[in-house]
């Protein structure tokens, strides 16, 4: 069953939903990266919660006009409109008052959501007996999804993805460094508007599948996960798109296999699984790598300090330093230096002295800037430069 779902053999609708979710995930991952890099990930939370009153009002308006209140395009248009108003409120509160952006986000999301709930209860009493089914927008639902709905979602995801590809350069620059982008003559407010517009489009398109509470996850989690693997913005965008797309695909396929597997939550949990993997296992920025590196770094610092203390016949106080030096055979159990320890200590001291000379010499300014107490000077200078430096050492009587 799972295999059939993953290979798209569960029927036309399920296939379309799965592909739509994959496209949506890709577009969301890529778009979310720009929000995340601009440190504005949670703006999407305000956008998504602010869709609710729009959905409800659109329903009311469509019913009042005599139509079917549940027509998806109408509901999505309404949600886009109220999300846009919510965004305006966030920027108004942030720019025109003393409130910070996080407070503005929280205020907008709770108030719009609360107002949306009020409208939902109004609709309940309007349609007494008949279920409007708008609650499905809270958590998303693919059950009973119409074919044309699936087409709207897939097409929407594809369009947003295309726009992200087209706008990636200016958005990268703005997300990375606003001021620089402005200095380079870019229209920063307009590009930010485009970023927000894309996030809004993702939210609206994703409402039906993932629901408004969880759509934020698709904008945030893939981007954060991708960030662990690379430092290059372009690669983060692509990777986030891949992670988002994979989550959408696997999540939607899995959820098609059983009724008790709601699409939105499954997609989010798949994305979270990929995030957890990235958090721990990613080389370089992952937690394991960072922990190992930190331990190694700390050991280097302690050993170096211990050696310098040995060389200058100063007492070593710290337990960790003593332990590390014993383990490396630099000192004996009673704290006295071994032969190796004496050699290494002399070498460390010589390096420190060389650095001292180098740093006093304006000619070596550039090399001096890389001093951090740990880097051996041999790594910084050529042998010839070292020899020249050492000739400057001797006359001063330090050996």
């Amino acid at each position, binding site marked *: 069953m799972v295999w059939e779902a993953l290979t798209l053999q569960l029927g036309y609708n399920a296939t379309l939903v799965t592909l739509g979710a994959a496209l949506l995930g890709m577009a969301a991952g890529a778009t979310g990266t720009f929000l995340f890099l601009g440190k504005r990930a949670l703006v999407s939370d305000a956008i998504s919660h602010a869709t609710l009153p729009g959905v409800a009002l659109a329903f009311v308006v469509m019913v009042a006009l005599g139509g079917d209140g549940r027509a998806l395009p109408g509901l999505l248009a309404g949600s886009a409109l109220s999300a846009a108003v919510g965004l305006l409120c966030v920027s108004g509160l942030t720019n025109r008052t*003393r409130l910070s952006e996080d407070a503005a986000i929280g205020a907008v999301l709770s108030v719009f959501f609360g107002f949306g709930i009020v409208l939902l209860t109004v609709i309940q009493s309007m349609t007494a007996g008949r279920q409007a089914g708008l609650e499905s927008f809270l958590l998303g639902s693919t059950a009973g999804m119409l074919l044309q709905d699936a087409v709207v979602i897939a097409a929407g995801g594809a369009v947003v993805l295309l726009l992200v590809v087209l706008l990636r350069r200016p958005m990268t620059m703005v997300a990375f460094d606003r001021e620089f982008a402005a200095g380079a003559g870019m229209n920063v407010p307009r590009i930010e508007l485009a970023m927000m517009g894309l996030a809004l489009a993702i939210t609206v398109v994703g409402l039906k599948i993932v629901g408004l509470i969880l759509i934020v996850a698709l904008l945030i989690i893939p981007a954060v996960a991708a960030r662990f693997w690379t430092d290059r913005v372009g690669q983060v965008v692509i990777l986030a798109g891949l992670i988002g797309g994979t989550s959408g695909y696997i999540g939607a396929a899995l959820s098609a296999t059983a009724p008790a597997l709601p699409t939105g939550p499954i997609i989010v949990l798949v994305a979270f699984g990929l995030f957890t993997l990235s958090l721990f296992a990613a080389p370089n920025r992952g937690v394991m790598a960072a922990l190992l*590196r930190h331990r190694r*770094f*700390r050991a280097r*610092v*302690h050993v*170096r*300090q211990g050696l*310098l*203390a040995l060389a200058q016949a100063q*007492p*070593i*106080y*710290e337990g*960790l*330093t003593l332990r590390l030096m014993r383990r490396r055979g630099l000192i004996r159990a009673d704290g006295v230096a071994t032969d190796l320890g004496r050699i290494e200590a002399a070498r460390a001291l010589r390096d*420190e002295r060389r650095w*001292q000379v180098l*740093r*006093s010499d*304006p000619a*070596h*300014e550039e090399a*001096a*800037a890389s*001093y*951090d*107490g*740990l880097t051996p000077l041999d790594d910084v200078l050529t042998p010839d430069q070292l020899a020249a430096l050492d000739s400057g050492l001797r006359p001063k009587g330090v050996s």
Partner: protein
Amino acid sequence: MELVTPETGTEDRALLEASPLAVRGLTVSYGEKPAVFSVDATFQPGVMTAIVGPNGAGKSTMLKAALGIVTPLSGRVTAWGAPLDKMRDRIAYVPQRASVDWDFPTRVLDVVMMGQYRQLGLLGRVRTEHMRTALHCLERVGMDGFADRQIGQLSGGQQQRVFLARALAQDADLYLLDEPFAGVDAATETAIISVLKALRDQGRTVVAVHHDLSTVPDYFDRVFVINTSKVAEGPVSEAFTRTNLQEAYGGRLAAAQMGALG
């Protein structure tokens, strides 16, 4: 972190016990590069010491690590030979102005009275004498009349004076200041230095991170030169030399600043 251990040489122990603030083997790192490496410092009582060094040389970091505001990678800190935590009552700190949000809803007098927290405790009643002390501290920095002002309305120099007044309200024996003269007007600079000198003349110890080399000889008795690791420490006449500054600042030592060396 046991501090004065049996292994500590008797000579060093005497030094530590006399010193209001001493660090041994202090290394602090924000990433994979130490900002402060293996620094020993022994600040002398009853004098004013400047911590100088180029930008990014670890001056503020060293002070913050000594105070426990950032966690060092290794090293130990003593105040009068004892663990720092036992001596908090005797230490006053003036952080960089820019480290707080001046839009915080409070008034000048409230900020100064934060310096009396250790006396007031959780629920101790604020008595007239506390108010009087706080007002007197404001007076000493020339800010009387500003007690009821909202802190957001202050200029940079006034903010710095309020922070100094708060430290005065701590009534400490050791005053640690992080860039107290950064971005302040000339009148404020004069006001601050005269307060600090008065403290020194009462036998208290002043240690300040300082960036303006030209004023070091006028303002300070001793100097601690740092660029990641310690370059020199001693009386201004001995340690504030062209050689030491050259080592700390490299090519960044501008000719104008060298003029200060006479």
